[in-house]
């Protein structure tokens, strides 16, 4: 595939890794924000290519994983409402809530449908005018513009039974929250590639300016990630932290203005509740008053019992980079992709799922 295969060359990857090894004199901790990067790093065995001085931690960039248990319970409670269809991206279905899951609700008769795109949810609403269709809006800035576009499409078509439960989250504020907490000392951040296609690199500027930490936005192929690692290690060795784009074929400093415009047209910034992190101010997106008729919070109010985390699950620590999936006692024994205990084992971007899938077959360094 063009724009993919060229960035997978194994010989070049080994050369780059040797250069990073030659450059790196002191131990550093790099966090890959994005769950897509976590999977690529494990899939291509990048941790084994890197020198022992470079430690990688996964971050909160898995939308399913960081959805707070209380929000998840809300979505599940809505699924049990009469005359309601839940439309959701597939990852959400298997995530265990405090008392049930969307999968269980479905088994008990709820109408839960997996969609590939928010547009599909609009079509379901159009074809089922007597039902309320609630789309579970999870995801970061990559996803939010597509949801905004779907709301505008429903508006244009006069579809009034399409509702969005907005759990959308914003990247820069949670990076700030992690840096403020200081729980894990980070020397560099691998910035999310596809979030940045939308928001650009400018919103991350504070990372180097206020915290003296470098942030390099990366693509998802192995050479992209190694190029990013090389850039970060060089910055750290020279003591010159900067915000840079190592994925310029996709990311511009100013981002995608049209996507940002639609996102701002439909959403207002508000607080968001993150699993393992809690409420982070200005880190979420709420549907604006002008589009309140599309807001599932208003159309389908529910008040589930107080939420609880799955017992023994360390997903909350994993998304903060404070624990590695292998530090969870349930990993691979009680908790597997077939019977997941927490969302980090369910999602295609969850760190536990990545470790489970790739760590055993390529002998990844268990650290």
């Amino acid at each position, binding site marked *: 595939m063009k*724009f993919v295969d060229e960035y997978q060359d194994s010989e*070049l990857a080994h050369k780059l890794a040797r*250069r990073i090894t030659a450059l790196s004199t002191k131990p550093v901790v790099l966090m890959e924000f994005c769950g897509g990067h976590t999977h690529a790093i494990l899939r291509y065995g990048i941790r084994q290519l890197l020198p022992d001085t470079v430690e990688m931690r996964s971050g909160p960039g898995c939308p399913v994983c960081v959805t707070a248990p209380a929000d998840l319970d809300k979505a599940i409670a809505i699924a049990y409402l009469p005359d309601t269809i839940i439309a959701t991206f597939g990852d959400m279905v298997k995530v265990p809530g405090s008392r049930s899951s969307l999968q269980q609700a479905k088994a008990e008769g709820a109408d839960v449908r997996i969609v590939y795109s928010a547009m599909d949810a609009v079509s379901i609403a159009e074809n089922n005018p007597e039902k309320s269709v609630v789309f579970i809006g999870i995801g970061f800035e990559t996803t939010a*513009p597509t949801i905004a576009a779907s709301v505008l499409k429903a508006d244009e078509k006069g579809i009034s039974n399409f509702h969005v439960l907005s759990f959308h989250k914003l990247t820069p504020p949670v990076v700030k929250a992690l840096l403020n907490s200081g729980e894990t000392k980070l020397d560099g951040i691998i910035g999310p590639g*596809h979030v940045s296609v939308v928001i650009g690199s400018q919103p991350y500027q504070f990372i180097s300016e206020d915290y003296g930490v470098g942030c390099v936005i990366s693509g998802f192929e192995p050479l992209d990630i190694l*190029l990013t690692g090389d850039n970060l290690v060089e910055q750290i060795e020279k003591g010159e932290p900067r915000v840079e784009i190592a994925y310029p*074929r996709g*990311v511009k400093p100013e981002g995608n203005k049209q996507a940002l415009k639609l996102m701002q047209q439909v959403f207002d910034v508000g607080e968001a509740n993150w699993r393992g992190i809690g409420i982070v101010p200005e880190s979420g997106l709420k549907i604006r008053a002008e589009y309140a008729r599309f807001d599932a919070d208003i159309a389908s109010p529910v008040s589930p019992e107080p939420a609880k985390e799955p017992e023994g699950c360390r997903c909350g620590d994993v998304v903060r980079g404070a624990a590695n999936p292998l530090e969870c006692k349930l990993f691979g024994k009680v908790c597997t992709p077939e019977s997941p205990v927490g969302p980090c084992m369910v999602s295609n*971007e969850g760190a536990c799922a990545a470790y489970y899938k790739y760590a055993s077959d390529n002998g990844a360094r268990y650290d």
Partner: protein
Amino acid sequence: MCLAVPVKVISINGDEAEVDASGVKRRVSIVLTPEVNVGDYVLLYTGYAIGVLDQNEAQETLNLLEEIADFSEIR
């Protein structure tokens, strides 16, 4: 969930485009990338083109990769 794949735009019709995704033709929304032209590659994400890929920058990155990889061999 943030994984987007590069696909080639074959034709454009209003706010939709037909793209070639590894040999499979699909219709995608281009409301987020109105500047796109036939022949461009876009990043396809859940039915929407979220960005247009920059072919010059793509080549620049490959050049840079070669350059710094060779540099590692000299040292």
